């Protein structure tokens, strides 16, 4: 079965991102496909490449990146939510005259259409938020 996941909250403030990650991992272990994880609102902060949590804590952005790498999961950050919060990939940084970019490996920036498409293509949409 194809699952779509929507994450509406950032890392370390609410449990949403942790819950979504555990759900995605369990679904993959059971042989399901994660069609896409869409990060909306503060959820875009899960895609930062600049997080340096204490070593004895989980590294939430890295966990997502590894999931994307190991199981080719499509991780999409909402472009409007990302720009407001200073989350820029190389192209967006260039386009906006910024000197640096901070989107972690495995994540990409795109529009809300990707959420709609996930809703259409996936058999189930599961929402994690506060």
């Amino acid at each position, binding site marked *: 079965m194809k699952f779509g996941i929507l994450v509406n909250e950032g890392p370390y403030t609410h449990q949403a991102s942790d*819950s979504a990650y555990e*759900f995605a991992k369990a*679904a993959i272990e*059971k042989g*399901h496909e994660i069609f896409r994880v869409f990060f909306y609102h503060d959820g875009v902060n899960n895609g930062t490449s600049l997080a340096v949590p204490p070593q004895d804590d989980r590294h939430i952005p890295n966990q997502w990146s590894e999931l994307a790498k190991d199981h080719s999961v499509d991780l999409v950050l909402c472009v409007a939510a990302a720009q407001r919060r200073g989350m820029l990939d190389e192209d967006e940084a260039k386009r906006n005259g910024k000197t640096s970019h901070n989107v972690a490996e495995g994540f990409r920036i795109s529009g809300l259409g990707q959420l709609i498409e996930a809703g259409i293509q996936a058999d*189930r949409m*599961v*929402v994690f*938020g*506060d």
Partner: protein
Amino acid sequence: MAMLHTVNKSPFEKNSLESCLRLAKAGSAVLLTEDGVVGAMKGTKHSKDVADAMANISFYVLGPDLKARGLSENNVAEGIKVVDYSGFVDLAAEHESVQAWL
């Protein structure tokens, strides 16, 4: 096929469980997650609402979230099944759609 409702807030904090129970149709299922697991405890002032709803709704609670909060499975009200993330995935797959009461 019926709907799976997920509730992630304690009934002592928000009224999302109450709203969910008011609108959930007979034959659907409710999964209590995150702080929502408090709604699965027996002997609280919300226990009766849950017990009444059990007549036509099935209830589940996420075990890892109980454990994270130091809540014992022994205190989960009768009739509520404890599931892990794998069970959460099964419930999502078995039901026609998933509605999160955020």
